[in-house]
């Protein structure tokens, strides 16, 4: 305690944070008290640990949990003032932390495929963290541990021990460097760099040196250092900080290997056939060492979504689930298992029903990919030959390749704020560059990078933005850039660097005045000058654009057009500002309809004004993603739209059925409407005349099916809808068909069944047909087995009666014995299609 005659000030406080004093509040507190000369101590009454309040690490290690009583002691010349300020800080600022905590992700309730519902099938639930389905032999990986005794380590002189540690660090650093020089994904690189940074950490090496000075051997010093940091990190209330313990542990073990010989034992595995790794936890380098040809999945007991193993799995496309309780014990080594990371469980693959289900599921996924890539090569062109660019909205660099596979013609919106979410510190320039460059490379097309868009409505912990009473009208989007200039500059530099890799452009969110654009361009100009001086490559013609979200921009477009290269309309915000509606307020949310005639008129004003100025204008809000709005968007004359990847195939197909000329007429009529209902009515009539996806499609006819049960037959039909991108949620649809089946069997007799459902989970009204090789039991009205199954799937919200009339006609025809007889005789898919289209008088192709 510091010398002085005065008595310290003391007071108590109860931690108000449900998550305790974890890394973020700890560093906030440390920052706050740093301004005072006095010294500060905190004593956690529950544990008895005391901590210097000026050290975040010390605060974290005091393990103050929600509700813990602590006492604070302050001593120094400004102690009175400091005590008052700190009490106020604890009472007000710290309490706000609770509001910033991110909600825990709850698993969505889901319908399970019928084949997996049998009580005979054991499923081990977990949290899916990297999507996909992986099958293979369970390979249980042993736990890494620093607790194993050293092999035979007698300390030599201190100098010799220091040299052993230095040599080990140098060797490991060189090995990491060598790994880094190989070509790899941004995620792999980031992980290895994080490991390098542990080796270079001052406190890490200081701790080793201190242990050596106390007479420990090199091995003992490494173990002591490792354990010290691991317990410190593990006791953190922040999942992100806790996850870093595995990284420190692995680094220490690697160093120990250099000094003390092999230590990995059962933790080092060789794969020889398709395998699923099962482990308590997995260290990142452990995962990178595995032969990826044979790695089909990952099951971890303890790992969070931010652990490096998970980040790697995601970037490598390896299906992974975490939080599987006792995974290494309940899963037998050598057993065939399936990691279903789409649904969130592990299931042994021994049961024949399970086995067949996943064989088919795997085939379905492959066919769907093939079907998607067929559509993805085609450009979006309207019936009258007009082009509209269909881009994808993405949140990470990794998503760009997947977007391209879905048929994206550009990345219309890269939401960079996701790189900043859930982080204690902002991503570095290098890390951001890697993400942007990956997007540019993956997309091979133009990538529009929107600079960080956060604020009162989208809080991010690391910026510590104030809580506001009216966040949508507050401190958000580019309005925060001036205050957080370093952060913004870093992002600008990363984007500039990426512009040398591929065609990227930059876009600012929440612009309301020209001054903001001029400021942004000034910042960009300064970075460009700096790049030139340092001879760093960048694209000098990097296009600069803005979001149109604030209505003021719409009435200043001639001036904005002189300053920027392109515009993108963000309909969510623009609409809520235009209608004066908080979309999160359920009482008024209904007013925020983008098809209000006034809003359509407003949009037309915007698009016309931009086009008059010869600039590019697109749309990236939710309005663009809803296929029902498409005729209006085409009528507006937008140059492009950007939507989430899964929407793209359906949108592109729909675009090819419209004519821009007719859509323009429709829009002109729509903006003359007085009421929303009139617009919707216009749209309904318009689309009912437009040929939508045909009811019948060769893709939906399956002959020679080997389905053995009603379950399999229904699933096969649902899968055909999924392959044809007519549904994105086959499990849900299957559940609905079965729910219908419970009310009464759809087996009509004479070997026919017509399972059906009505739901918007199906994207286009469909008739899918299955001809079975071997008749199956259906509980039909005549108790005879079924060999022809016709699935009818209709959209709930569908208002066009044309399709329903066809289905009614089909239902009536099925009551005719001769019709049934004819259809059951047909064996080829072509014959079936021709026959049905003739009988039902429907076209096979869109007109």
């Amino acid at each position, binding site marked *: 305690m510091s010398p002085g005659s005065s008595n310290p000030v003391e007071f108590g406080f109860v931690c108000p944070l449900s998550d305790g004093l974890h890394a973020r509040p700890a560093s906030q507190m440390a920052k706050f008290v740093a301004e005072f000369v006095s010294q500060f101590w905190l004593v956690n009454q529950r544990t008895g640990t005391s901590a210097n309040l000026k050290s975040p690490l010390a605060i974290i290690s005091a393990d103050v949990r929600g509700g813990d009583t602590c006492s604070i002691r302050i001593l120094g010349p400004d102690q009175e003032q400091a005590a008052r300020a700190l009490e106020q800080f604890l009472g007000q600022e710290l309490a706000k932390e609770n509001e910033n905590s991110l909600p825990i992700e709850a698993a969505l309730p889901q319908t399970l495929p019928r084949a997996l519902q049998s009580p005979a099938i054991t499923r081990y639930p977990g949290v899916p963290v990297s999507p996909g389905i992986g099958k293979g032999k369970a390979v249980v990986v042993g736990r890494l541990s620093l607790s194993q005794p050293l092999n035979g380590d007698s300390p030599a002189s201190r100098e010799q021990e220091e040299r052993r540690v230095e040599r080990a660090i140098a060797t490991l650093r060189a090995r990491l460097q060598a790994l880094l020089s190989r070509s790899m994904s941004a995620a792999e690189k980031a992980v290895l760099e994080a490991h390098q940074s542990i080796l270079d950490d001052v406190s890490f090496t200081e701790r080793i040196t201190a242990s050596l000075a106390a007479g420990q051997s090199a091995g003992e010093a490494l173990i002591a250092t490792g354990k010290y940091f691991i317990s410190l990190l593990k006791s953190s209330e922040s999942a992100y900080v806790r996850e870093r313990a595995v990284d420190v542990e692995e680094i220490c073990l690697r160093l120990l290997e250099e000094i003390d010989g092999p230590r990995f034992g059962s933790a080092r595995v060789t794969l020889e056939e398709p395998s699923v790794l099962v482990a308590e936890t997995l260290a990142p380098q452990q995962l990178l060492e595995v032969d990826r040809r044979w790695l089909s999945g990952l099951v971890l007991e303890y790992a969070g979504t931010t652990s490096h193993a998970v980040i790697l799995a995601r970037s490598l496309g390896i299906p992974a689930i975490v939080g599987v309780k006792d995974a290494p014990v309940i899963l037998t080594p050598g057993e065939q298992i399936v990691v279903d990371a789409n649904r969130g469980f592990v299931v042994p693959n021994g049961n024949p029903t399970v086995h067949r289900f996943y064989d088919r599921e795997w085939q379905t996924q492959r066919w769907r990919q093939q079907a998607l890539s067929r559509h993805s090569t085609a450009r979006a062109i309207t019936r009258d030959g007009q082009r509209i660019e269909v881009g994808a909205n993405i949140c990470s660099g990794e998503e760009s390749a997947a977007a391209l596979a879905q048929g994206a013609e550009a990345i219309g919106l890269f939401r960079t704020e996701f790189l900043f979410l859930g982080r204690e510190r902002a991503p570095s320039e290098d890390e951001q560059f890697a993400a942007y460059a990956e997007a540019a490379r993956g997309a091979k097309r133009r990538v529009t990078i929107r600079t960080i868009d956060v604020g009162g409505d989208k809080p991010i912990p690391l910026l510590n933005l104030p809580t506001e009473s009216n966040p949508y009208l507050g401190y958000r989007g580019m309005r925060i850039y001036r205050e957080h200039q370093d952060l913004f500059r870093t992002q600008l530099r990363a984007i500039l660097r990426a512009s040398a890799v591929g065609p990227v452009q930059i876009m600012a969110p929440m612009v309301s005045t020209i001054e903001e654009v001029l400021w942004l361009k000034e910042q960009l100009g300064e970075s460009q000058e700096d790049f030139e001086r340092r001879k760093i490559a960048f694209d000098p013609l990097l296009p600069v654009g803005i979001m149109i979200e604030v209505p003021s921009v719409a009435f200043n477009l001639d001036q904005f057009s002189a300053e920027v290269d392109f515009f993108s309309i963000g309909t969510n915000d623009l609409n809520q500002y235009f209608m004066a509606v908080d979309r999160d307020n359920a009482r008024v949310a209904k007013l925020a309809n983008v098809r209000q005639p006034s809003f359509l008129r407003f949009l037309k004003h915007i698009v016309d004004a931009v086009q008059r100025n010869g600039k590019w204008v697109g749309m990236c809000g939710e309005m663009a993603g809803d296929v029902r709005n498409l005729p209006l968007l085409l009528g507006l004359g937008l140059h492009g739209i950007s939507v989430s990847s899964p929407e793209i195939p359906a949108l592109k197909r729909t675009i090819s059925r419209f004519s821009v000329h007719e859509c323009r007429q429709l829009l002109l009529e729509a903006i003359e409407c007085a009421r929303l209902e009139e617009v919707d009515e216009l749209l309904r009539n318009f689309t009912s005349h437009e040929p939508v996806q045909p009811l019948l499609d060769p893709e939906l006819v399956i002959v020679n099916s080997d389905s053995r049960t009603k379950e399999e037959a229904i699933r096969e039909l649902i899968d055909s809808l999924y392959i044809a991108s007519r549904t994105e949620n086959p499990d849900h649809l299957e559940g609905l068909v079965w729910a*219908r089946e419970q*009310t*009464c069997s*759809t087996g*009509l*007799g004479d070997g026919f069944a*017509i399972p*059906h*459902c*009505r739901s918007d989970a199906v994207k286009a009204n469909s008739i899918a047909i299955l001809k079975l090789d071997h008749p199956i039991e259906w509980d039909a*009205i*005549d108790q005879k087995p079924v060999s022809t199954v016709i699935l*009818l799937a*209709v959209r709930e919200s569908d208002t066009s*009666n044309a399709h*329903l*009339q066809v*289905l*009614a*006609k*089909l*239902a*009536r025809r*099925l*009551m005719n014995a001769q019709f049934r007889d004819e259809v059951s005789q047909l064996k080829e898919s072509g014959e079936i299609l021709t026959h049905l289209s003739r009988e039902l008088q429907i076209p096979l192709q869109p007109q």
Partner: protein
Amino acid sequence: MKIVAVTACPTGIAHTYMAAEQLEKTARALGHEIKVETQGAMGIENELDENEIRQAQVAIFAIDIEIEKRERFRQLKVIQVPVQEAIKNPKSVFLRLQG
């Protein structure tokens, strides 16, 4: 016999129409005069008017759900069967008319 009928099933895209077809076909075969109103996904079709209902001797409801505008039939004898029965064995439905 002059008969009016209503068919309605929960989903309203198939069984409603199959039942209607069966009732119409069987009525014809048995020499009855019938008009069948369907209440399906397209709403009410082939709607029965006051006059038609007044002239009918009996109404057949082949329904699995509550129907709309039931009050129109207040004055009429109603035979109600599950949709399934009208599809599976329409003749038995008409046999009940004798009773």
